[in-house]
């Protein structure tokens, strides 16, 4: 849990590969006034946030500020919670994913998710990746697709000789990469990652972070992380959320959103500065 300590400028510089200008890029997502409530209490309110294509966007902030709730609203996973209510809009390539006539199944096919705790199916390694492909009708060249997905997740070499073995025999880090492979096998547009490395050891974490540098060439990635250093290492854009206290409790708000170097070295908002320099959080 090392959210303490300022992040050195050198680390940030190393994360950047080429100068980017977000304004040139297409916004894959754009949330407008997004508010998610559980029952009456809002968990995160009034978020206006564009997510840009082929970039890694990190969502950081103290615990309880609704980062995961925000993330899950991007692929309508909050629908699974009966008391959850969504106000505002989430525009995906211009369409509101909560609009009429939009099918959550289609939404989730385009916007994949990797969860905090690795959750492979109780099936073989091969079937873990192949299951989604079969269900979605992408059955042509199944073997090839499975291999490609596992390769992209940097797992192929480790499992190619035991594809028929159970997924539970893999280590935590391998299971998480399997979950990643399974998500990208179905060729999504976006991959959401909810604290993907928080249950993993440092070596496995590094592997996942390296993967994200590769994957962003093909996908748009949004990652929630409580680890500021991680955000600095992998993210092109960073959004800082914080908890705003009210009489009825608290809810999460977006404080600042900008290119990562700026957030960590010259944030505009005092609260951002306080968090990234470790004065609270």
């Amino acid at each position: 849990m090392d959210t303490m300590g300022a992040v050195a400028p050198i680390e940030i510089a190393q994360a950047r590969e080429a100068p980017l200008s977000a304004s040139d890029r297409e916004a894959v997502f754009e949330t407008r006034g997004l508010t998610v409530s559980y029952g009456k209490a809002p968990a995160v309110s009034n978020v206006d946030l564009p997510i840009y294509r082929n970039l890694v966007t990190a969502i950081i902030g103290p615990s309880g500020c609704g980062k995961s709730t925000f993330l899950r609203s991007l692929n309508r996973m909050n629908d699974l919670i009966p008391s959850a209510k969504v106000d505002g809009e989430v525009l995906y390539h211009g369409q509101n994913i909560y609009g009429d006539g939009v099918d959550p199944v289609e939404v989730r096919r385009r916007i994949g998710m990797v969860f905090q705790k690795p959750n492979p199916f109780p099936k073989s390694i091969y079937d873990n990746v192949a299951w989604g492909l079969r269900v979605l009708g992408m059955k042509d060249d199944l073997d090839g697709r499975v291999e490609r997905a596992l390769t992209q997740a940097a797992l192929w070499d480790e499992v190619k000789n035991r594809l028929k073995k159970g997924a539970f025999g893999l280590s935590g880090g391998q299971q998480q990469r399997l979950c990643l492979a399974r998500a990208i096998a179905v060729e999504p547009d976006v991959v959401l990652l909810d604290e993907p490395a928080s249950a993993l050891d440092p070596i496995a974490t590094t592997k996942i972070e390296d993967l994200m540098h590769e994957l962003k060439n093909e996908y748009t990635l949004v990652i929630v992380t409580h680890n500021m250093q991680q955000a600095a290492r992998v993210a092109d854009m960073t959004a800082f959320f914080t908890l705003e206290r009210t009489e009825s409790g608290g809810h999460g708000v977006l404080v600042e959103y900008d290119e990562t170097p700026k957030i960590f070295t010259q944030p505009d908002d005092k609260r951002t500065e306080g968090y990234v320099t470790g004065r609270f959080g």
Partner: protein
Amino acid sequence: MAVDAARFSLTPSPRTRRRKLINVLMQALATLAALAAVAVLALVIGSVAQRGASALSWDFFTKTAVTFGQSGGGVANALVGSLVIVALATAMAVPVGILIALYVSEFAPPRIADLSRLVLDVLNGLPSIIIGIFVFGLLVIGSGQAAWKGSFALAIIMLPLIARATQEVLALVPSSLREGALALGASRWRTVLGVVLPTSLGGILTGTVLAIARAAGETAPLLFTTSIAANAVTWDPRQPVLSIPYDIFILSESADPADHARAWALGFVLISFVLVTSLTARLLLVRYRKKLEG
């Protein structure tokens, strides 16, 4: 841009539409199955209530059956008989059941505890008619039928139910309670009898009530142990007595519609008893659990 629009479209594709259709179909089937089960329940209880309630009367409860051909009369002997049989069975089963549960929960080494649980589960799964034949062979052959022999058979059926319910409740007692008593210097047996058991009484009670509900409805064990009965109200457990389920059984197989009417009425009484006790027991159990955990 047109290619992109298609790629990112969120309206269902034909394939997705078909998948969603299958999904809705399956949901409908599942809902149908649940509704069918509830409907059957309503049908059965409805039939019994409709046909049975009308035959109830004060005479019904207080008189005994009349000879064939005459009208009137009642089922007092069956009511009393069931009362005697089930009460005795409860008295037999409850102490033993609690003792077994105490052993499994407090004293037994893990493997023996597993074995005991297996024994209880297997006992629970035995057909009740087998138990009836067993008691017949053990007690009735040579000496004749008697109410208490029927009680013995019912007690065998109640035993695993009470033992299991008690065991589950004992497991709910927080270990801090046991440890607290032991830390005070109380011995094992004082802890168990003075602290653990009283805390579990509510759960044991509800388990017993559920077992009574089950035993009250059993017919097969009584066929061989207490079926040949005189047509008078008997409180003596050494005599064979008529019981409600057995009476229903005989009346249901008769050709006389008057007998059928009586069977429905008896069935109504029996179902009412069983359902009311089951529901009450379950409600009590829920409340009891909350008290333990809350």
